[in-house]
């Protein structure tokens, strides 16, 4: 018993790294698809889905892309699922890049999705538009949008028909891994728009108070939020829209089990050691 205790006490941290690494990689390998199981959606993610579902064809949605490749793992799957859903619903999507490092990633993703056979009918400038980057703060941008939406971004296209100001946007959806969304929440008091967010898991707890007050309508939290959204879209349209988020969920589950295991073992060893020493 003492030998086991001593061994567990001196377990090398690289053994933990290795096990966590294996628990992540193995479920992603070909032939391990049976480990993938769809997650049950939370009401926060469902709120975003419902907002889009309740829109009519031709309504306008504004996507504020405020993340760069460093947050890609958690936020890109959510954007993909959200954008596909919007194209399915035939709502107009205005994609604005709030960070320059995200522009190329965004454009490539949009190009990849619209190249898919199912969405090949979507045309840039009609069904969706890349608004590029404008180097002004979100608050000034929102002010300008309230007067002249099109003029703020200096873009042209049929998509702008019927969208004159901020008030013509039915839903604003922000994707960011920082406290950037707070500006949109602050300005919402003045302009009263509907606002939903996708955040990295680290930032999730910070936005819960805004959900409770209804200032934020819908929040997709990290990779799990994206997996939930993929499931909601797949269930609704009876076709698989499962992407990298759902695939990653099995890895996330198994890696957490390994971490839980080590936390439990660590605590048992700690208490046993404490008891042994009196």
């Amino acid at each position: 018993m003492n030998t086991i205790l001593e061994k567990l006490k001196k377990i090398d941290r690289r053994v933990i790294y290795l096990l966590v690494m294996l628990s992540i990689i193995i479920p992603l390998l070909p032939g391990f698809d049976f480990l993938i199981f769809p997650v049950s959606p939370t009401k926060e993610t469902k709120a975003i889905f419902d907002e889009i579902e309740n829109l009519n064809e031709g309504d306008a949605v504004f996507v504020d892309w405020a993340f760069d490749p460093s947050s890609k793992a958690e936020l890109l799957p959510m954007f993909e699922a959200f954008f596909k859903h919007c194209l399915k619903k035939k709502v107009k999507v205005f994609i604005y890049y709030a960070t320059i490092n995200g522009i190329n990633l965004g454009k490539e993703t949009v190009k990849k999705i619209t190249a898919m056979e199912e969405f090949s009918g979507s045309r840039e400038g009609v069904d969706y538009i890349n608004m590029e980057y404008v180097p002004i703060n979100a608050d000034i941008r929102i002010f300008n949008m309230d007067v002249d939406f099109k003029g703020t971004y200096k873009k042209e296209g049929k998509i702008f028909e019927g969208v004159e100001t901020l008030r013509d946007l039915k839903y604003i959806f922000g994707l960011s891994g920082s406290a950037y969304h707070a500006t949109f929440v602050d300005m919402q008091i003045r302009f009263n728009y509907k606002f939903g967010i996708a955040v990295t898991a680290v930032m999730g707890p910070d936005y819960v108070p805004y959900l409770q007050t209804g200032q934020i309508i819908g929040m997709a939290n990290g990779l799990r939020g994206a997996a939930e959204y993929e499931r909601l879209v797949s269930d609704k349209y009876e076709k698989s829209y499962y992407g990298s988020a759902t695939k990653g969920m099995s890895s996330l589950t198994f890696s957490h089990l390994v971490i839980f295991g080590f936390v439990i073992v660590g605590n048992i060893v700690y208490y046993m050691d404490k008891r042994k020493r009196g």
Partner: protein
Amino acid sequence: MDIKALLDNIFLNDMFVSWIPVLATIMILSFLYRDNPLYKIGENIFIGVALGYGWILSWEYIVDPFFIMPVKDMFVEFHFWDITYILWFLLALTMFFRFSRKNAWVANYYFGFLFGYMAGYYIPIAIQNILRQSTDLMKPINQGSFFESSKWFVIIFGTFAALMYFFFSKPHRGLLGKTARVGIVVMMIFFGAAFGSTVMGRVSLFIDRALLLVEFPMQSIVCTIAVIIYMIIYFKFIKKEKLHDDESFI
């Protein structure tokens, strides 16, 4: 062949796009075993590429369209409001006075403008936000399910108890001590939730890398073997320092 096409041919061909990200990922992961030159190379390449990429994009999307182009146009057809470009540019240039000890105060004009604007702008909004958050708490509690009602008690008494922990004007004994103790529990629950989310976020980042490795299995296996061979040679023959106890893994 022009230089842009040549660079595109080098950096966008399938060979480069598949091998380099995999190799760079494994080079960085090699740090998990022990700090080594491959990791350092990967780290420096990452910083260099990220900085260079950001610099080029800043020029392409900010400096060129919003400063150089308008100033060029100014020389073709001048409007009175074009002077604002020069004024903002001069204000931005004051930042460089930070390099001078004697004249560093000049940069304060820039900061003065920025802070003045931000304070004037955000203070009313922040107050509105606090009021919005506060009014949401002032609701009849007998609405909704038991869970819905009970959460307001948790929020109100949890906030109060957590604040009491930071009340140091009186010793933490008796009722105050017990309330402060509840405050610690409330804070620990929040920290636990935040830590759990952080772990989930970090694992998600690795999942993204793992998806890349799985997408290119041959490259991943070759690069992993190459990096392991390099590390064995490096730690056995080049850097013969004795491993610390906690580093004796292989």
